[in-house]
């Protein structure tokens, strides 16, 4: 197999590639934050009666909350802020498809590249 000689990349090309990677990193990490896609999907189940009993706290728990500086009113939003685990099947299917598609592409494309590497490495000998 003939040895592959990569083209020399210009300085400007290298800088451009660095910029592409940096922009991609920021978009991937910053965009979900900006669009509100990051963070936990929780919501507060508000209660009318804000007492330790109504909040499901026994005397031991209530004494610890108070030691930490909380009252039933200030602890209400912490205790009642809950996850609501409802499986959204379309989203789950999309997520599974994206993940499986990603890994299938990774392994298939990697294998094509790997064969070139092995051929060049071992056919030289």
């Amino acid at each position, binding site marked *: 197999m003939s040895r592959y000689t990569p083209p020399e990349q210009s300085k400007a090309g290298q800088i451009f590639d660095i910029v592409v990677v940096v922009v*991609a990193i920021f978009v991937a990490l910053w965009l*979900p934050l900006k669009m509100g896609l*990051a963070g936990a999907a929780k919501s507060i189940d508000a209660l009318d009666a804000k007492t330790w009993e109504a909040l499901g706290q026994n005397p*031991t728990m209530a004494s610890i909350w108070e030691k930490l500086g909380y009252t039933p009113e200030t602890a209400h939003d912490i205790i009642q802020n809950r996850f609501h*685990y409802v*499986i959204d099947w379309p989203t789950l299917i999309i997520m599974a498809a994206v993940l499986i598609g990603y890994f299938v592409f990774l*392994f298939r494309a990697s294998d094509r590249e790997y064969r070139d590497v092995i051929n060049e490495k071992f056919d030289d000998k």
Partner: protein
Amino acid sequence: MTVTLEPAVHGDRVSLLRVLGPAHVWALGVGIVLVGEFTGWNFAADKGGALAALIVCWVVGLLYTSVAMIDSEVTSTVAAAGGQYAQAKHIVGPLMAFNVALFLVFAYTMLEVSDAILLGDTIVAKAGVEGLTHNSFIAATIVVLAWLNYRGVLMTLNVNFVITAIAYISIVILFFSVSPWTQGAVLKLNELVTPGNALPYGWIGVIAAFQFGIWYYLGIEGTTQAAEEVRSPARSLPYGTMAGMITLLIAAAMTWYVCASMMPWEYLGITYYPLWDAGKLTGSPLLENLLFIATLLAALASANGCINDAARAWFSLGRDRYLPTWFSAVHPKYRTPYRSILFLLPIALAFAFIADLNQAITFSILSGVLQYTFMSINIVMFRKKWPLGSIRRGYTHPFHPLPAIVLFCLCVVTFFAIFLGFGSQLIAMVAFYFLISLWFHFYRYRFVRRGDQFTMPWPKPQGY
């Protein structure tokens, strides 16, 4: 045919320095991870309750034991900087290697960001001064640690060894100070974790808790990044990694027991400082101050190790031309990948100021789980391409392929756990990796020398 283990060769350029021993490997792995006991693991209680946090502590411990076993075998054989990146390059292929390096850089950089936020928030909370923000503490932490990494790996990991040991001892001191053998005096587990609130969301909450259960141990696999800088990779890496894993399992169990016995699960699930809070609740100023200092030291040790690991992964990408070769420079005096350290510095700073703690943790966890999924498949391919006896392995892990199967199954469960509450973030991240992979495969790879990527002195893989 058996081939002897030799370090990877990368031409005549200035190379990284081989100065580290098993204690440094332990310090690197445990140093990165131990902060997870001081914050992060407790968000598992938020997702599933206190008992769920304990269940995932054990089950995710099994996941990481598999990771440590698999990693020890492959890394003690592929002794090259970049850790899992170098493994992927030799076993799966260039595109996978490129992705794995990005997983590493994201996982460690976001972990570093989380550490810096934790450190800043802890100091601000302790100071209790109105108007004081965490920004200056975050900036100082990231910049000073980057400078330390710039100056040399030996000094960096010596510092890590000392501060990690102090942080670890503080957990042990707290554990024995609260009389763990008696209930009712300080610890009140029976009254705080009751049949009615142990699993507030049922078993779906246990699965959801896997996401933050990862935080008990995330980063232990970072020991492999030192492969090119340890004096004896075949001995030091398995010893250091396995000792680190045992250390962490003990610390995680002690941490859960003390914290779940001292705080209601709703509070435990949202606090940023569970161990420091436990110290406060004992009523002892000595323990309170000790846990405050230990929280800071654990954050520092973790951020320090993360800078070390992320920079080596980025450096490796440059060395193989996956990214511009400018990144592959080694400092002529300090023998560190200084350009990579400096390049990642502003990225970490930027995200420390725009993300909050649990978002940064989730970014880090996502990249970690993608990497573990790769590792479970990678070991099967490694054994298939180079069966036992065909090359010399520094360590051979037992029960293959059971650890790989366990690891893969637990990764699938963890993806589902992330979907429960953080699904949009997961899809956004995978979409990024997919797009950047297209960029690499169809454009960037043209600048890469083909055969030069394979640097191990191994025979041709079977099936090729």
